[in-house]
Structure formats: C-alpha cells, structure tokens
C-alpha cells in the first residue's frame, strides 16, 4: 500500500462525500474513512493452521439536517457507493426526531496543531518469514517442558493503514498507523491426569523492533500454563485480592464506563453526578495523555476533530471530569473532553511497590490472573465475575486456583484500593500496574 497515494485518495473521497451531503440538503456532516492491509499467520503443532490476508476499507458518515441526524456506512468506496451512502444517511435524517443536542462539535474546538505521533511503522515481513517466526515461537513453548502437551496456536499479525476524519467545519485529520503482534498459547497437563490448562502471552507494538522476542513470549506462555496445573477451587470466604496488571486494567475500565458522558446523562451509572466527589483513596491519580509517541491510544484529535490534551480524570481520589463527546457534553451542560471515539491513553499512577512487595502486602489472599464473564451491573456497581489465579499465604504462592467467583460492589472496591504497583503492562490503551483491593467475597466449594 502506498501511503501517500492512499491518503490522497481518502481525501478525495472525503471531499466528494461532504460535497454530496451538502447537495442533498445536509446542513452539516462528518465522516471517518479507513483503508489498510495486513496479514496474519497461525501455527498449530508446527503446521500453518491459517494464513489470512486482510484488506479493509470503509466510510462511516453522519449527516445533520438542522437538528435531525442520520448515519450510513459502506465498505465500497466507489463514487456510486459514496453517493448511495450519502443519500441513505440523508434519507434517515428525514425521519429522525429533532434533538436539540445533536450536531458537530463547536468549530473553535477543532485541532489545529497536528504533530507526528510516530504511529506508522509497517513491518517489512513476508509470509514465509512470519510462518518461520511463529513456528519457532510455538516450538520453543512446546519444548519448554514435557507437561506442555498441546498448543492452542502461535500467531503473528501485522497491519498498517490510514484513518481520516473530516467534517463540514473544514477540519480534516489523517492518522497513519501500524500494529504488529506475536502471541503464543499452549496447553499443559500433568501425566496421568485429565485436567488441562491453557495460558498465553503476547506482545504488541506499533514497531516490530519493539516486540518482545519469540523466545521470551514462548517462555512466558509455557511458564504461565505450567503454573496453573493442579488448580483447586477455594472454599467460600472473604479475602483481599491482588489483580495482576493485565486484569487490573478491567478495574480502570469499569470506572471509566461509569463516568462516561452517555452513562451520566442517561443516569445509567452507579457513579451518578460524581464530578468533584471522592471515589478513590487520596493516592489515586488517573490521567489521560493523548500525545505519547508510538502509544496505541495516541491522537491529536478525536473522532469529531476536537483537539485532545493532557488532563487529570482523577486527582487525589477525586473525580475531575467525565469522559465526553460533544453530544453527551451538551446533554450535561458541560464541555466535550475530546473523547468521541474513545479514551486516548490512560495512566493510573503507581503507589511505588513492585510485584513482590504487593504480594507481601497482600499477605494472605487471592492473586487474580484471569477473569471471565461480564457480571457487572452498571446501574448499581454490583460486581461478580469468574476468576482464576493463585492462593497466597505470607506473601508466597501456595497453589493455583480456578472455578471461583469474586464479588463485591465497585463503589466499595474503588474505596478499598490499597496499592497500585509499578509493574505496568504497556500493551494496551490503559497503563496500570497490579491493583490490591481489600474485602471481596470469593465463592467456591
């Protein structure tokens, strides 16, 4: 894919779509376009299980006729399809109701300084090389220990593309980006036993040079699987819980969902009207940093073209502002926080302890390394999820645990956070270390 030509082509499509929208009677319009390509290989027991070529493109358009809104999307970017899509969106706007809060974000909020976030680094990798790399990764994990009896697949994927956002204020922003990943998942079993356990590890980055080595990924996957063998159920009890960094991210996300503008104006949240309220202990600081070079959530502008900026979401345990686009902000009588389309890199500051220190702080309790199910009631904050991990006594691992649930109310869980580790997982848009929370109920045998 030639990135310069592609950008030019997307700009032309964008201009055409906005022009057609105006012609169809739209008073304003906004759109996003994307085009990209890549491939993935998946290896199972030394064989290529799947080799998939990906090629994606699409237009997503919203038009406004006064205070009436209509949307349409298409995967076909031919001039005829663009015209049909514009007409479809305009047709819908004729039937939607008048909504005083709808419309583009204010023109004076549009991003004007758009720097280079260094997000675009295509990987010069052919499929044969990718196959070798993934085979190698899987082989190392399978050879790691005799108790690794099977593989759930090792894979490599690479994708690069370009996204464009524009609107009838005259804003156009372009984001070229790439994403590569290597993953490995293996299955362990003790000799003579039926019980199998699976675990995995993966690395992902915008730069292939920054991926962990296949050796490191394979070793972590195998070690994680082996540690889970002979897992036991716990008896039902109250316990303190340490969430590993990969799982701790979900605690942050339950909080951000609860302070999302949509949840606030619909009153569908257990944290209603919480600006300036204390939700966490004093030492909790959560902030958004949209301009980190090479990070997954980095953006100079959101989906509405609004300029993003560094901001505190929680300071000294107190909620500073919600997570809003222009629509939910108008509903709430507030100002957009440039979160149309999502959050741009969240960091939960560490309280300074490393993982070993957190285990000592936990003393006796449950280290959670996997969660399943979606048992969170967003209206009440009631929390109940399936969990697996390790039982800890005197700061040391005693045995692996599975088939239990952990439950509490999120409001209490937020208040009862005791520490945030410095063992940060950088693989996603939320950066946090392990989180130690007191007073959950474990249900088991």
């Amino acid at each position, binding site marked *: 894919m030639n990135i310069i030509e592609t950008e030019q082509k997307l700009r032309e499509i964008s201009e055409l779509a906005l022009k057609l929208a105006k012609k169809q009677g739209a008073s304003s319009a906004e759109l996003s376009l994307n085009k990209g390509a890549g491939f993935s290989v998946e290896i199972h027991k030394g064989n290529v299980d799947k080799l998939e*070529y990906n090629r994606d493109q699409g237009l997503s358009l919203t038009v406004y006729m006064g205070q009436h809104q209509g949307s349409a*999307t298409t995967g076909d970017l031919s001039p005829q*399809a663009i015209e049909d899509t514009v007409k479809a969106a305009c047709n819908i706007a004729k039937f939607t109701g008048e909504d005083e809060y709808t419309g583009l974000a204010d023109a004076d909020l549009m991003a004007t300084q758009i720097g280079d976030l260094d997000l675009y680094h295509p990987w010069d990798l052919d499929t044969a090389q990718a196959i070798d790399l993934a085979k190698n990764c899987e082989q190392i994990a399978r050879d790691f220990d005799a108790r690794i009896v*099977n593989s759930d697949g090792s894979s490599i994927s690479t994708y690069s593309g370009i996204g464009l956002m524009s609107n009838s204020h005259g804003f156009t922003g372009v984001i070229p980006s790439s994403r590569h990943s290597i993953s490995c998942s293996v299955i362990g079993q003790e000799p003579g036993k039926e019980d*199998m356990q699976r675990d995995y590890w993966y690395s992902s980055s915008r730069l292939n040079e920054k991926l962990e080595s296949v050796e490191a990924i394979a070793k972590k996957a195998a070690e994680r699987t082996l540690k889970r063998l002979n897992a036991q159920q716990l008896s039902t009890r109250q316990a303190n819980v340490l969430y590993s960094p990969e799982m701790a991210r979900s605690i942050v996300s339950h909080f951000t969902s609860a302070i999302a503008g949509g949840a606030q104006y619909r009153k569908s949240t257990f944290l209603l009207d919480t600006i300036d309220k204390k939700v966490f202990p004093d030492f909790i600081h959560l902030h958004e940093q949209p301009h980190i070079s090479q990070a997954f959530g980095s953006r100079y502008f959101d989906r509405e073209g609004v300029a993003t900026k560094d901001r505190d979401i929680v300071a000294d345990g107190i909620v500073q502002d919600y997570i809003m686009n222009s629509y939910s902000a108008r509903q709430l009588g507030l100002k957009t926080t440039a979160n149309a389309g999502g959050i741009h890199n969240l960091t939960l500051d560490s309280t300074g302890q490393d993982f070993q220190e957190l285990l000592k702080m936990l003393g006796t309790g449950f280290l959670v390394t996997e969660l*399943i199910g*979606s*048992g969170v009631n967003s209206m009440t904050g009631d929390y109940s999820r399936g969990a697996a991990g390790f039982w800890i006594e005197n700061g040391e691992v005693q045995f692996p645990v599975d088939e239990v649930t952990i439950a509490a109310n999120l409001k209490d869980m937020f208040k009862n956070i005791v520490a945030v580790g410095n063992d940060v997982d950088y693989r996603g848009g939320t950066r946090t270390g392990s989180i130690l929370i007191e007073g959950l109920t474990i249900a*088991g*045998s």
Partner: protein
Amino acid sequence: MTCFLFRSSLTASESNKKMVTYMTQSILQQSKQHLLDPAGITESQLDQVFSYMQGADLADLYFQSTRFESWMLEEGIIKNGSYSIDKGVGVRMVIGEQTGFAYSDEITFDSLSALAKAASAIGKSGQTAKVKAWQAREKNNIKQLYATDSPLASMTEDEKIALLNLADKEARAASPYVQQVIANIAGVHEHILVADNEGNLSADIRPLVRMNITVIVEKDGKRESAGTGGGGRFGFDYFTQADRIREYANEAVRLALVNLEAVAAPAGSQTVVLGSGWPGVLLHEAIGHGLEGDFNRKGTSAFSGRIGEKVAAKGVTVVDNGTLDNRRGSLSIDDEGTPTNCTTLIEDGILKGYMHDKLNARLMGVESTGNGRRESYDHLPMPRMTNTYMLAGEQDPQEIIASVEKGLYAVNFGGGQVDITSGKFVFAASEAYLIENGKVTRPVKGATLIGNGPDVLTKVSMIGNDLKLDTGVGVCGKAGQSVPVGVGQPTLKIDGLTVGGTEVQG
C-alpha cells in the same frame, strides 16, 4: 481460547408459522443476479479461478452482500438511524490442515483471480494437482426455512419508527417509576452464494430482525435497569403481532422493578433451579463450545476424545438444531453450502457427537453437520452452533421448585463465557430468587454462576416438561467473529453449582 454469548431478551415467543418451501431455482438465480452478474462473472470464469487452487483438499468462494438498517429511540425521540451496505468475496484454499484465505470487497474476475493466487500461497509445497474441470452443479433441493423478502422493505420508515414510539409509550405506561426508555430495531437482508471445488453452487437469502427495549426505573432514590427483546428470520411486521411490543415493554419494566427489591446474593455452592428458555445459555457455554469440531480435532477441548462417555445425567438429551423455521440461529444452508441439521450432542447422558464444518469433518473422517458458519465474507468459516437446546423431561416445574429446601431459582441471565481447555464456564444471572422450604421467596442481586463443563450436567437431578427456546436476540462470539444463535431448555435442577454472591452463609 474463550468464547462468549451476549443477549438482552426474555419473554416467551413462538416462531412464525410459515409454509414449508424449498429453495427454488429462483433463490440461486436471484443470488447470482445480485452477486455475479453485475461484474459479468461467468461459470467458466469461476472454473478458471478454481484452476489457480488445484491440489486443494477443499476450496471455496463465498460471495456475500448485506444490507443493514437500524433505528434508535431515546428520551422519546428517534435519535438516530443507520444504513449500511457491504459486499465482497472470500476465497479459501485448504490443503491438509492448512488454510489459506484472502478476501476483497471487489467482486470482479480480476480480483477473484488475485485472491485465489494469494490463498493458494499455502500450498507451495509441491502437491500434485488434481486435474479435474470445475463444473457447476446447482444445489436446488434444499428446504427453505424462511421467506426471502427483504425485512428492510417490509415496512415504511414511518411504520418502523412507530414500533419504537409504541415501545416507549408501553414502557412508560407500565409503571410511574420508568425514567428512561431506550428502544432499537435492526434488520439485515443478506444474499450469499458459495461455489466450492467440487462444483457445488449453493445460495441463500437470509432475513434477520431484532428489537430491544431497555428501561431505567427509579424508586425511593434507587435505580435499576433491565432489557428485553426478540427477533428472528422474518420481517419487522413480526413485532406488530400478538401484542409483542407491549409484552417486551412490560417484561423489561417488571424485571427492573424486581431488581430494585433484590437483596445480596448468597455465595458458594448450592442447589440451583434454572428457568426454561434463555437460561439454556448454560448449555451453550458448558458443553456447546466444547463440542465444536475444531477444538476436538486439535485436542484442545475439555471434551476431546470423550465420545461415548457419560457426560450428563440420565435423561439429559441436548441437540443443536439449525432447521427450525424462522429462528434466529437457523440457516437453510450453512456458510459452506451444507444444509443444516438437527445434530444430537448428548443422548440420555452419553456424549454422541461434535458439530462440524467441512474442514474439521474431513480431518476427523466424518461428514459436515452443517455447522460451518462465518461472520461475513472477510472471515473464515468455523464450526459454530445454531439453536442449541435440551429436550424436555417429565417433571412439573412447580414440583422441581417444591423439591428444594434451600437454593437459588435463576430465571434470567446476561451473557456467559467459557474456557474451552479447562472447561470452566460462567453465566451471569440477572433475575434470581431464593428458594426457601420449597418456595420462591426474595429476589437476589445478579450474580455470576461458575462451573465445570464436563461435569455440570452430571449434577442435573430433575428436568422439567416445559422446554422453551429464547426470544431471538443471542449473539455468540468466537475468535473475533459474531454470529446469531439461539438457545433453550426446560426448567432444570442442578445439585451444586457455585453462585458468586457476596453473602457468605454462616
């Protein structure tokens, strides 16, 4: 791998009674006209495309076009609607266990040729080519499970909007505590055409609609929310029949009000009675995914190699049935062109069979069960469930509840998830009550139930005579692909399932 199921539905529904029709010449002709004719693609050109994939154990071209429309109401206003068109072709070549796959949104002979060459990169290991000319064999004798009319055209825009306004009105009329009503409808009309390397040419035209109503209630400073809905393979007019919208609205409001009164759920292992219908999510998670052919061919499922073994109590029979008229999970043919079946998974407690697509069936030396499904042309087919349910037993549901001294009666659920390899699964109750001395008493807060797939059904001690299927809003996720599915079961008593409440029993 873990797989999950979503939902938001509740009440009883019957599928529309339609006359049985057979896939006529016209379905195949309509699909060809729609997918091949615009680019002037001929059968001899398809022949040429397959010639790039000689040596394939399995190869297919999957042409698809989808039209989707949705409308959303909130705060009494039709806030937005959306329309989308997607069209493309996926080309797959399989040699042994290896699959090569490429797709494009461009349906032209040139793009097909390029895709076939890309997909065949998998086979660059010197296989000898089977020299056999591809010749189209049109498959026409397939039982058609739904009408082919576009649900999008089944009503005018004003009529579709009227459905949402009615939902709003009914929900607000149901209780003075209703603060917010969010209602949406969505419809899809899909044409598919599958050409495989054996020369089969199969087509399907699929309608699918759904409606969801979510309400937020507030009483004495406490707020709760609940949702219901339904749908299936027919037009939007389904929602105008039998007072359906009022039923959905009343049910959503009832459920939200019940939860306002809920007390903390008990924690730990207890006797659980599951209601009929949507609680069949248990079967989907606990055993359904574990019986999909891909996991078993690879030996990664907790059920691998266990055919013929006892995995459930006597009297437990579970099927996956893609042949029910008009159901959300039903398909006349799967996405590989195989007619769907009613596949017995467990019969009287004994594990009978897995669900297969063509690839896994061939590698395991059996026939495809018609479970090869894919989210769209840009995804590979995999073994997936259709409508999965347990057959009825003989017990009166009231007797089942009366038999429990102390336990939980769980009648509605959110979603569920399963770890295929360990067999551990969860499903989250959203409406549940305590059973005390054989009587249903107080409502308890939602809680996650957790168990082990291979042995949970061995603990089934009573099976109700009230088999019911869900109302038609299930979405199953596996390996990044979502497909519509159905579930169902009669009332069931399970002796010992872990309930993830907060209340530790003294």
